[in-house]
């Protein structure tokens, strides 16, 4: 399965380009099934297609479907299930007011990134699509999401080492004194010393495997990271930052779409400065970013809306 991510600063045209890319790809590959998913909390994928989209997958053409993922709803549902489960498991600890702590999990740092990653995992598990195209949230969140599997692996490895040490010590005691028992609240529970029975170890191992698979997928050629940028100084700086931060996690950028490029034979005086900045940025970009292909897309008088317009846009500016 191929995965395409479209990243970039707000307002650079990620949604238009990703929508057009999905329309073009599905049009010229009729035998394959495609899904475009907006992971941006401020959705406007439906606006680009001129179709109302929701949190449910909607078929747009024979082989293209789209969805605007409701991250807020996803977090809420996930935490509701977890909270019920936790309050039941920890019923003996209610005297410490821990149940109130669980209610604030919604505000844990990194919960959005986790929801985005969970959402990506959910789509990857679906077998009906041959390629996924993601219109992503602002750069900061997306780069953190792409880096999350590797960061998580560092933590799970360390936590598994500590857990193993706990289970080893329990085993030693068990060999001398028999099974270890613990009193939690009013209940006596028998603690396991076996890795295969310890629920925490099982979860850590499973989660670590899931994250390793994701990390390998993000680092492989199946994942194509595309940056959408504009010929402006600030956009160039951000593009370089995305490339650098992804490089740290061995994730390669596939292509840069240099969008909203101004073309004038005789530019009006009022935008001459802008044209100079544009030419300087483009020159700098080609000089400093060597191994990534850069595709220019001019600023259009009207943004493409609807499948027909998006296909024309694809044919004229994206197709190679």
């Amino acid at each position, binding site marked *: 399965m191929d995965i395409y991510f479209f990243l970039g600063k707000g307002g650079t045209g990620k949604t238009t380009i990703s929508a057009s890319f999905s329309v073009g790809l599905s049009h010229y590959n009729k035998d394959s099934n495609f899904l475009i998913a907006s992971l941006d909390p401020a959705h406007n994928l439906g606006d680009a297609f001129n179709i109302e989209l929701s949190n449910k997958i909607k078929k747009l053409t024979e082989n293209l479907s789209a969805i605007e993922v409701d991250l807020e709803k996803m977090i809420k549902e996930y935490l509701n299930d977890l909270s019920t489960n936790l309050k039941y498991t920890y019923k003996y*600890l209610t005297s410490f007011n821990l149940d109130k702590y669980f209610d604030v999990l919604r505000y844990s740092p990194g919960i959005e990134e986790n929801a985005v990653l969970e959402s990506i995992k959910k789509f990857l598990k679906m077998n009906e699509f041959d390629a996924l195209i993601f219109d992503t949230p602002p750069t900061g969140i997306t780069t953190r999401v792409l880096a999350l599997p590797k960061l998580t692996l560092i933590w799970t490895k360390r936590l598994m080492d500590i857990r193993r040490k706990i289970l080893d*010590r329990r085993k030693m005691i068990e060999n001398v004194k028999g099974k270890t028992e613990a009193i939690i609240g009013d209940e006596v529970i028998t603690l396991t010393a076996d890795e295969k029975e310890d629920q925490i170890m099982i979860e850590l191992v499973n*989660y670590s495997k899931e994250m390793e698979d994701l990390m390998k997928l993000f680092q492989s050629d199946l994942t194509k990271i595309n940056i959408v940028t504009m010929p402006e100084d600030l956009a160039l700086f951000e593009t370089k930052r995305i490339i650098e931060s992804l490089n740290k996690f061995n994730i390669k950028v596939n292509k840069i779409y240099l969008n909203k490029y101004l073309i004038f034979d005789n530019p009006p005086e009022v935008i001459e400065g802008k044209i100079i900045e544009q030419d300087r940025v483009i020159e700098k970009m080609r000089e400093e970013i060597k191994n990534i292909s850069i595709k220019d897309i001019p600023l259009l008088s009207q943004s493409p809306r609807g499948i027909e317009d998006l296909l024309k846009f694809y044919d004229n500016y994206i197709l190679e």
Partner: protein
Amino acid sequence: MKKLFDLLKKIFKGLDIGLREVSTSLIEKELEETENVFALLTMGAFAGIPSPPTGIILRILPYMQREIYVMIARSKNIDDALAEIVGIFSIE
């Protein structure tokens, strides 16, 4: 005779328990501390220390009751940590 035999049995059993307690007390303490470290690392938000990515916490939280219990019990005795160490090493 039977009474004497029972008494000896009790004495040896008591000795056995005592020796087993002595041999494992340090390991038990180490185990408790490791459980506490594990809880602190994963539930760092309680103490304001850096936490692992939220995904890990959400996955293991339902099974952490023992660790949280140890952590809370541990924090209650934190003021008397020196006395505890002295006790472990039988310093008089």
